[in-house]
């Protein structure tokens, strides 16, 4: 059970990191070439997902470590 919980924590942490890196890369790509990303993908939704997964990571790791 504890092992499964560790994996769940790790998965949520990975989701947060990948979503954050994706958001940063897409944001700067769209800044360099306006519309490159935002013509097809809503970056605000991606940002909300980053925030949600970040909050989940903090809550699941307890003290934030």
């Amino acid at each position: 059970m504890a092992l499964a919980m560790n994996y769940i924590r790790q998965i949520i942490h990975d989701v947060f990191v990948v979503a954050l890196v994706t958001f940063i890369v897409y944001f700067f790509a769209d800044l360099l070439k306006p519309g490159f990303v935002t013509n097809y993908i809503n970056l605000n939704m991606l940002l909300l997902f980053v925030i949600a997964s970040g909050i989940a990571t903090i809550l699941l790791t307890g003290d934030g470590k």
Partner: protein
Amino acid sequence: MLHRHYRYFRFFLIAIPIVVFFWLVAKDFAFSGRLDMSYDFSHDSPFVKRPWPPVRFHDIEYDTATGDAFERMFVEPATFAVKLPRKFKRATVEVLYKKDAAQPLRVGVRMHPEKWAWDIHDLEVVGEENGWTRGRVRFENIGRAAFTDGKLQFLLNAPGLFENGQEVALTEIRVIAEKDPITLSNFFPRLWHWL
């Protein structure tokens, strides 16, 4: 067992944004040589903008039978911008409209960024959809049209509209932009131009 699944999960988690990025590059390049865009008056489109100026139109209404959004133009001309990720050679403009049979409706593309110069053509009727008429115009040389800030300007021209007390209702504007598809021989010159 759990660890193996976790590794698969991580692989897909990292692969998905990379695949999406290449999909965005493919969309931007228009590898197929074709970009199909439309505006339906209910949702903003990143490509086809709402006709302008708005004072020449009534507020957006909704068809009671189909629920389609539409806008009635009572003063002409009106323009609409089409934002393109790059230059294209040809374009087909389709308009879904309702109007009196005697009222002409034409579409033009702006040929000069500062002068009032338009390449205007009559809409050719190509079909009927739920009581709306679909008209089509094909522009064979939009490569020479005014392409300012990544946008082409199109004109909706309905001579005598206001004088005759007529209106033209529009429910969809569709633009299909075309250029030569990307092949192995032209990929690298185009990539260089894009960079």
